[in-house]
């Protein structure tokens, strides 16, 4: 049916709250140059480009993919833009993989980026439409009642969010590209962090970052002739649902469960907790780690928080989650999903450096967006499907 596709190059920028040293074009190019160097190919070897970012109001540039054509050396090449809010980095990588799997292009460059310092991501998406009650609370205000719902339903102790935060901030110190390098967090200190949107503390929230991630994907024919480690794409899945509808399960959205079920089925995974070696999961607020562990089918319902308490998701645990430091340590929204996908690829390629999980063979990248309504996931391995 579909052709095979492999990641042969991964490149990301140094992420920071403001990368004033580069324009949006320069930021994107930094990731592209690193991905091409990692793949050991030139920009002329690229057949097509797939680019994604969060909605254009974040930087105030409409259709930036047109302006970025020079920076992407897209002269005379097909360029495809993907829009799926916060999950876009994942969806973009999937669309790029499909360009290869469809047998249309042999080598595809894909990029996710955001330059959040040029605008204010928290408010750019909070236009007070006249037919809805304006909350003026940003993403934290939107998600805090959902987190509260999870805590009530699962009986999780209140310190689990802080545990995830400390883990991710500590992991990020092993990742030279991560935005936040804060080695001194302890659980005690984290619990004293100011309450932002009860029950979400300041330390349990992601930063706002400038950054980009780029991947080079190749068809089986090209990848087989290509020297160097590869991450073979075993399965991809996307699902969406509306923000609100009668009876919607907000804590564990049905679209996320269906997306994961589809991913496991396509990838031939019957016991994700046993078969997956490392997971890069989109966790912009710390409590989403236990929530997504359940939604993805790793942990049983109401048990995700126990995985955190038991250290299962630590580096060295049975299922390390976000050894890169994750969204909790780096969040250029349009790149964040592709950072999860790319970090998963780096793990199975053995290229994750100080945050490498020894012997990682199968990894997932996960992204979500909007009001927990857009989901994108992929399963990669060092071996062919």
């Amino acid at each position, binding site marked *: 049916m579909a052709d095979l596709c492999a990641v042969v190059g991964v490149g990301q920028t140094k992420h920071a709250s403001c990368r004033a040293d580069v*324009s949006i074009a*320069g930021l994107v190019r930094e990731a592209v140059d690193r991905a091409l160097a990692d793949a050991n190919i030139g920009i002329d070897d690229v057949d097509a480009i797939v680019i994604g970012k969060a909605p254009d109001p974040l930087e105030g540039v409409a259709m930036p993919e047109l302006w970025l054509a020079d920076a992407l*050396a897209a002269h005379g090449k097909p360029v495809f833009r993907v829009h799926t809010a916060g999950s876009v980095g994942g969806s973009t990588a999937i669309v790029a993989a499909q360009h290869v799997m469809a047998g249309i292009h042999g080598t595809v460059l894909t990029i996710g980026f955001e*330059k959040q310092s040029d605008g204010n991501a928290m*408010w750019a998406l909070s236009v*007070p*439409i*006249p*037919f809805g009650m304006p909350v003026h609370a940003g993403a934290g205000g939107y998600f805090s009642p959902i987190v509260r719902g999870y805590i009530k339903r699962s009986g999780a102790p209140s310190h689990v969010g802080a545990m995830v935060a400390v883990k991710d901030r500590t992991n990020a110190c092993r990742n030279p590209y991560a935005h936040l390098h804060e080695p001194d967090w302890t659980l005690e200190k984290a619990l004293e962090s100011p309450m932002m949107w009860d029950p979400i503390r300041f330390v349990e929230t992601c930063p706002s970052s400038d950054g980009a991630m780029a991947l080079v994907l190749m068809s089986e024919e090209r990848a087989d002739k290509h020297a160097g480690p590869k991450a073979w794409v075993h399965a991809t899945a996307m699902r969406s649902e509306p923000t609100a509808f009668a009876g919607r399960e907000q804590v564990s959205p049905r679209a996320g469960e269906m997306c994961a079920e589809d991913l496991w089925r396509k990838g031939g995974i019957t016991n994700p907790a046993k078969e997956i070696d490392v997971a890069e999961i989109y966790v912009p607020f710390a409590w989403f780690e236990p929530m997504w562990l359940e939604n993805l089918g790793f942990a049983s319902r109401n048990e995700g928080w126990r995985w955190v308490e038991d250290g299962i998701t630590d580096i060295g645990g049975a299922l390390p989650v976000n050894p890169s430091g994750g969204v909790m340590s780096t969040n250029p929204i349009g790149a964040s999903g592709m950072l999860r996908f790319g970090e998963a690829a780096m793990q199975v390629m053995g290229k994750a450096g100080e945050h490498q999980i020894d012997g990682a063979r199968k990894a997932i990248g996960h992204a979500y967006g909007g009001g927990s309504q857009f989901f994108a996931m992929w399963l990669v391995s060092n071996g062919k499907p």
Partner: protein
Amino acid sequence: MSAATTPSTPGADGIFVAPLVVEYPYKRTVGTLLSRFFLSLQEGRLEGTRGSDGRVFFPPAEFDPVTGRALDEWVTLPETGTVTTWAWQSVPQPNQPLEHPFAWALITIDGTEVPMLHAVDAGDIGRIRTGSRVKVRWAAERSGGVRDIACFDLLEEAS
């Protein structure tokens, strides 16, 4: 950010129209390369970048439009150029470069091949034509932006 959603009132037909005003400030990080361009304007100098095919771009291109290569060869340009085409603004609007009628023109700075948009203080529609020679008029106070060029003046032409 500011936004207004004051209660709407129905018109005579009973149909509501809800006002929605969205005002939102952005900034633009231009990076080190384009910072040099803005600095040169502030210092009263035109600087462009040279592309892989030898063409010079003003305003400077950051990446080569043909090869995609990051451009880093700077060329200092004269303050003169040629009108490639133009339109006449007979009734100037607020915040436009001039308060009296003027021309919007695509101006190819000498030594470059790609024109830029700016204003020409031609005085009268009959004085400007495609091919007119123009020269930069610098703003009295410059802050590092394209409006450090107040406008262009027509050069007297040898007849």
